[in-house]
């Protein structure tokens, strides 16, 4: 084992003085080692002689050199011409698409309608037991949760106070009187915004006052039958919430009322489209098939978008992304170019990573006689791997199916490299109960219309499955 290591180092030329001495002493003392070294050196010499005898055939080397060299040269010329042709068209198109997207976004924001008010109601019980529905002051919509929260809290507080006043036989005393005085002082015309600002203080006073009143002899006496009309329940029913909000009048009323108010608020907010977001950002991945190719060709797409909610159900936004796909093309060329026709066409930005797989119909082996090189015309079917980047503006329509599920449709128009883009997508969206994240999955199709390609077919299409995730606020 030691000799093997030393022999390896000897061949590598990486021996130290000490190792060399050791190696020499082993060779002197062990004849088998000397034989092994001699044989190894002879075999190595044999391999080097073999390497010297192997030379590429002259005609083969010349043929390959000329063919590949001319391909590089031709490619450089085509590239130069392509760049010259693309420059005046590509840049204005991209700028126009960006400006169009920005303009659409601005116009939509400017024309977005006023959001409808939230009709918060409370039930006032009349002296004869008849219920009178009182509409709370018009407050903000579900898109303004803070204001809506204040309105609900205010309405509920009033309903509870009126119940207590009735229970007190129209002669409020003690804590109830204090509480009514507080409501009278705040007045019905108090704006929702100021209510929202002072809501925490009012709640604290209510917490102090209610137990005082409820523990008074009058409150717990025969007149308590009025209390069977549960104001919280009536309020919830009038607001259309389905959750059972039981409010019982006992010593922990204040704490329970607060909890129930919170639930009512949650219920009010959840009545809107889920998720209730003004701005949304999302990412989508897609996989599918290029439409015009006869054989299956993969399509991969990724896109990023952000959108603005015009109404609860309609969104507009901008989307940008990239698609990688394969495109089949038949070309005729000489054998000197060996099936190396230029990759990329019109809308293609360039080849991706390792380039295309080609199915060359002609024999791949060069069979020309030595001397002159005669190009042989061959018919080739190429499968070009291409990539485009695109930008688009889209309109998105949502139809609510359930609390968590939405059915959506999206229509997008935009531009890619020297091409116009149209995209249609239908997808389902599932929103998690936390409402933070939405998962999407659906189907869609795109079409590209090349503005620069000289090929007979200027348009191409694809379709596939898309899935993604979005969030917003």
């Amino acid at each position: 084992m030691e000799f093997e290591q030393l022999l390896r180092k000897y061949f590598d030329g990486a021996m130290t003085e000490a190792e060399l001495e050791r190696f020499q002493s082993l060779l002197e003392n062990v004849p088998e080692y000397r034989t092994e070294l001699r044989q190894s050196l002879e075999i190595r010499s044999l391999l080097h002689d073999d390497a010297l005898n192997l030379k590429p055939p002259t005609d083969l080397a010349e043929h390959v050199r000329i063919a590949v060299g001319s391909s590089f040269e031709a490619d450089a010329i085509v590239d130069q011409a392509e760049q010259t042709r693309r420059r005046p068209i590509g840049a204005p198109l991209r700028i126009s698409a960006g400006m169009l997207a920005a303009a659409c976004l601005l116009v939509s924001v400017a024309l977005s309608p006023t959001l409808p008010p939230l009709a918060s109601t409370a039930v006032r019980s009349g002296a004869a037991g008849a219920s009178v529905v009182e509409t709370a002051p018009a407050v903000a919509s579900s898109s303004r949760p803070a204001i809506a929260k204040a309105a609900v809290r205010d309405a509920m507080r009033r309903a509870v106070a009126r119940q207590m006043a009735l229970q007190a036989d129209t002669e409020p005393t003690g804590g109830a009187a204090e509480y009514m005085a507080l409501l009278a002082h705040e007045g019905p015309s108090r704006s929702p915004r100021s209510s929202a600002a002072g809501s925490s203080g009012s709640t604290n006073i209510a917490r102090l006052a209610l137990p005082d009143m409820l523990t008074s002899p009058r409150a717990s006496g025969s007149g308590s039958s009025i209390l069977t009309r549960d104001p919280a329940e009536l309020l919830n029913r009038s607001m259309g919430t389905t959750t059972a909000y039981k409010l019982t009048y006992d010593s922990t009323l204040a704490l329970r009322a607060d909890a129930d108010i919170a639930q009512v608020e949650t219920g009010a907010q959840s009545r809107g489209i889920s998720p209730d977001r003004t701005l949304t950002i999302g990412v989508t991945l897609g996989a599918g098939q290029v439409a015009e190719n006869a054989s299956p060709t993969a399509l991969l797409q990724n896109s990023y978008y952000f959108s603005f909610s015009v109404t609860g159900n309609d969104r507009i936004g901008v989307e940008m992304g990239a698609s990688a796909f394969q495109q089949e093309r038949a070309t005729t060329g000489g054998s000197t170019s060996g099936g190396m026709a230029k990759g990329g066409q019109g809308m293609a930005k360039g080849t991706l990573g390792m380039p295309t797989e080609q199915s060359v119909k002609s024999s791949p082996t060069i069979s020309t006689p030595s001397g002159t090189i005669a190009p042989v015309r061959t018919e080739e079917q190429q499968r070009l791997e291409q990539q485009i980047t695109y930008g688009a503006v889209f309109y998105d329509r949502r139809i609510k199916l359930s609390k968590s599920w939405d059915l959506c449709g999206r229509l997008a128009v935009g531009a890619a490299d020297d091409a116009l883009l149209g995209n249609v997508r239908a997808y389902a969206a599932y929103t998690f109960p936390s409402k933070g994240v939405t998962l999407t999955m659906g189907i869609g199709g795109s079409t590209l219309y090349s503005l620069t390609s000289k090929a007979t077919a200027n348009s191409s299409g694809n379709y596939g499955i898309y899935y993604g995730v979005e969030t917003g606020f």
Partner: protein
Amino acid sequence: MAKKSTIRSSELSDDDLFCLTQNGDTEAFNALFRRYERKVYLYCMRVLLDEDLAHDAFQEAFMRLYEHRRSYDGRNFMVWFFTIVRNVCLNMRRNKKVTVPFETSIANEAPAKITDVVLNEHIVVALNQLPIDHREALVLYEYDGYSYQEIADITGVSIATVKIRIFRARKLLRTLLYPVVYDNGV
């Protein structure tokens, strides 16, 4: 229309030459081709151990050089190109394509001595018995003259692995080749 490089090609690195080639400089490509034709040929011949396949692989490797030109990142042309050559050879070896014999390859060569032909056959038979990764490392080291580090970069394994493979290949080759070559007096 061919561009001519004003700098002597021998002064330029492989990377510079390939960049010039991509811009249509045929002189740069010719210089690059001369640097690599022999190494690529040796590799193809001694890894594939089949002359027709090796000739096909030789052509295919340079064609792939052109086709893959966009994926070159401007660094270490040798490793990048030999990775292509290696993939071509491994694919051909796997597929064992049926090819039209290259009829002019042997006809144009000077007639070989009988002993050279026999020796060549013995080497081919012995190399054929080596595992492909050992054979590949040995060919890159002994035939093409690449360093351990360069072989590790091309094959994607560690230097230690390359050293072990070459040493084992040498040892196995000695066992296989020495008795038939030297004991039979070839």
